[in-house]
């Protein structure tokens, strides 16, 4: 940072400069690998930059790979070379807006790191599927594989010791499983990672345009047919066929991380880490503004990823502007493509400090492109809950399901709702769109997440409660195909 070179003069050893710039950029979080440094070194003699600014443009074209990196490249470049150009000398200061800096509070780092630790300390069984995750073993019977390492100690004994330890442990975990996330200590939440691992976040399939060989496919695979015909003297005796591949729909999780929602956000991140299928989800957090976490969550150890996620989500524990955050989601990534045909999970208590009209409009826009919208609101666990809060009332008509998912036990509802095919939005299609006919009539918008509800429990008044009533008519059982520790 101390080396300064003045004006137009490019120092003789270009390779050294390129490597130095690359190192500084890497420190600032730009993935400046040696290949890119080499590219920069090759670019400079070609473009023959006459000014500092042109040199900066060379660095920008060779090092950056996203608009969010532009400012970082600019800052690092001007630190190293003493400015970017003559035209905007003041631009290089630390006031640059989108620099990755320390988060305003240390809390997210800790929380996320804890979630990551939980995921690591309760590793998945070495051979999932062989240990009978769904075989009605008692809760917390544990995965046989986690005798390895020191991490698997306290919460879950390995299979050998399980005979004696199981009853006590099982009852403890059972108790934790029905406890509200908000009442769990971080350590207790981590103990639940084993249970979360047994869940599967399966979303409905969609028909992809990619094809694969299939005996019952409709389209003839000429390439393969002809290849086989060569063995039979050019006679195509057997027609090879192809059929479209089925793929899971995109799962998008929008996570409210404002103050009151923090325990649930933490639990949800842990769930995404632990449960099968969670890793493919696109994750966004919001409070006052929207932050995309997916890049931070993917392709690195959970601990490190979650620490980065904490830095990436600077508005942790701030106020909530759900409508504005949803609008940002819709405008930037949702409507252009990401949300199309996707299953969307919004985790929020619906307490929006913004205008309800904004939230209503954005939910409407989202519902037109999304496959299903599932709203997870921990407050709906209460019998007394009514969607009277402006935000929740505005959003409700556009949700396909509203559920509490406030404890591990209640998470089964979430997995069931995710796996359910089709849309259930009775009002968003017909004329009631502008004025949803509730919440006054929503006397029974009760979410009792226990699984021993009688089927009659869903006999709700018309309107809101039908969200659950229709598709949960047979009671709150988890889908049969669903792998989970359901008993």
């Amino acid at each position, binding site marked *: 940072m101390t080396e300064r070179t003045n004006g137009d003069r490019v120092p003789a050893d270009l390779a050294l400069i390129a490597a130095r710039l690359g190192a500084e950029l890497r420190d600032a979080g730009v*993935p400046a*690998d040696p*290949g*890119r440094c080499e*590219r920069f070194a*090759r*670019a400079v003699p*070609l*473009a*023959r930059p006459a000014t500092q*600014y*042109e040199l900066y*443009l*060379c660095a*920008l*074209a*060779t090092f*950056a*790979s*996203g*608009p969010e990196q*532009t400012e970082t490249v600019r800052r690092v470049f001007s630190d190293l070379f003493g400015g970017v150009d003559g035209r905007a000398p003041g631009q290089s200061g630390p006031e640059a807006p989108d620099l990755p800096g320390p988060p305003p509070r240390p809390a997210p780092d800790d929380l996320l790191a804890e979630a990551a630790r939980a995921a690591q300390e309760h590793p998945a069984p070495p051979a999932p599927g062989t240990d009978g995750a769904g075989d009605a073993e008692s809760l917390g019977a544990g995965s046989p594989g986690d005798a390895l390492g020191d991490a698997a100690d306290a919460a879950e004994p390995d299979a050998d010791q399980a005979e004696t330890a199981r009853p006590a442990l099982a009852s403890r975990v059972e108790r934790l499983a029905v406890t509200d996330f908000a009442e769990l200590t971080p350590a207790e939440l981590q103990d639940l990672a084993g249970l979360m691992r047994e869940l599967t976040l399966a979303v409905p399939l969609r028909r*992809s*345009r*990619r*094809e694969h060989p299939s005996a019952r496919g409709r389209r003839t695979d*000429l*390439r393969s047919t*002809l290849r086989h015909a*060569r063995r039979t003297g*050019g006679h*195509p005796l057997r027609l090879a066929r192809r059929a*479209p591949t089925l793929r899971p729909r995109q799962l998008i999780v929008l996570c409210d991380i404002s103050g009151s929602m923090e325990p649930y956000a933490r639990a949800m991140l842990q769930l995404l880490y632990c449960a099968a299928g969670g890793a493919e989800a696109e994750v966004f957090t919001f409070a006052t503004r929207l932050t995309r976490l*997916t*890049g931070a969550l993917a392709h690195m150890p959970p601990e490190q990823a979650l620490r980065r996620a904490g830095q990436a989500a600077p508005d942790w524990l701030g106020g909530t502007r759900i409508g504005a955050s949803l609008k940002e989601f*819709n*405008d930037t*990534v949702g*409507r*252009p*493509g*990401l949300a199309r045909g996707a299953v969307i999970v919004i985790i929020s208590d619906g307490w929006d400090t913004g205008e309800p009209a904004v939230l209503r*409009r954005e939910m409407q*826009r989202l519902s037109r492109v999304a496959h299903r919208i599932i709203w997870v609101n921990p407050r709906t666990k209460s019998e007394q809950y009514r969607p009277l809060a402006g935000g929740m009332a505005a959003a409700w008509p556009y949700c396909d399901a509203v559920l509490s998912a406030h404890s591990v036990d209640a998470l089964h509802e979430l997995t069931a709702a995710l796996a359910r095919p089709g849309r259930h939005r009775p009002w968003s299609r017909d004329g009631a769109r502008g004025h949803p006919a509730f919440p006054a009539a929503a006397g029974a918008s009760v979410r009792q997440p226990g699984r021993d509800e009688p089927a009659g429990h869903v006999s709700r008044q018309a309107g809101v409660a039908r969200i659950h009533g229709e598709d949960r008519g047979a009671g709150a059982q988890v889908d049969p195909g669903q792998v989970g520790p359901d008993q």
Partner: protein
Amino acid sequence: MSDLSGRLPDVAALVAELNAAGYLTDQPLGVALFLAARMGQPILLEGEPGVGKTEAAKALATVLDTPLIRLQCYEGLTAAEALYEWNYPRQLLAIRLAESRGETLRDADLFSADYLLARPLLAALDHPGPRPAVLLIDEVDRGDDEFEAFLFELLAESAVTIPELGTRRAAVPPVVVLTSNRTRDLHDALKRRCLYHWIEYPDTERVAAIIRRRVPAAAEPLAGQVARGVARLRDLDLAKPPGVAEAISWARALVVLGADRLDEAVAAQTAGVVLKYSEDLQVLRAAGFAAAAGDD
């Protein structure tokens, strides 16, 4: 690559040529395109829709005076559609013909260049030169992961492998331009192989200049008015702010209508040319159509 040093001696020459070709650009994009062409390195262009990503590739092809070979990406794009396909009917006919003549056919006879249908990627590699073709891989974010992975060999080596023929290496590697609308994040491995440039929405002056260039029939006050009108629309809280492409088609629409200035009444009639969402039209209606009109 070799031939380009004469045609593109420096950045300024490229920018001037691009301007002459009808693509008004700024220096950052000029540097990026220059490096892409001279280094033989693929370039990834991103920017909001309608900012001129595809046009940049077209203009580059015009400047280089080479064919533009375009591949539109979509989910499920396979080698058969992007790279090559064997001409099966012709192969079958050849087999029958050989049979009836009592000739013997060998594999090599059937899997030769005669029976190869070159799709865009192969066509770009096979371009004989002397200057490289411009290969536009458009909206690569619409493709899927499999297709991205499939591109790696092409981008890094300017070569593709065809099982029956072996590896085909480009005699004159094409200038590869990829565009993306950022609907999903591209794989890091793909980004690592590319130069990168984010195209900013140009300032009002430049938009006016672009309109004048692209719609010569737009009389003088009109181009500036449309540019300022679009700029004002972009200040409104819109779901889909209009881009340069919308500005051009708005100017074109006004010319077709015979309007010589953009006033409130004309703006109200033609708002649908620039705003494609009913929510956005409502916002504009609430703000008053005068907001879009280019009052001077």
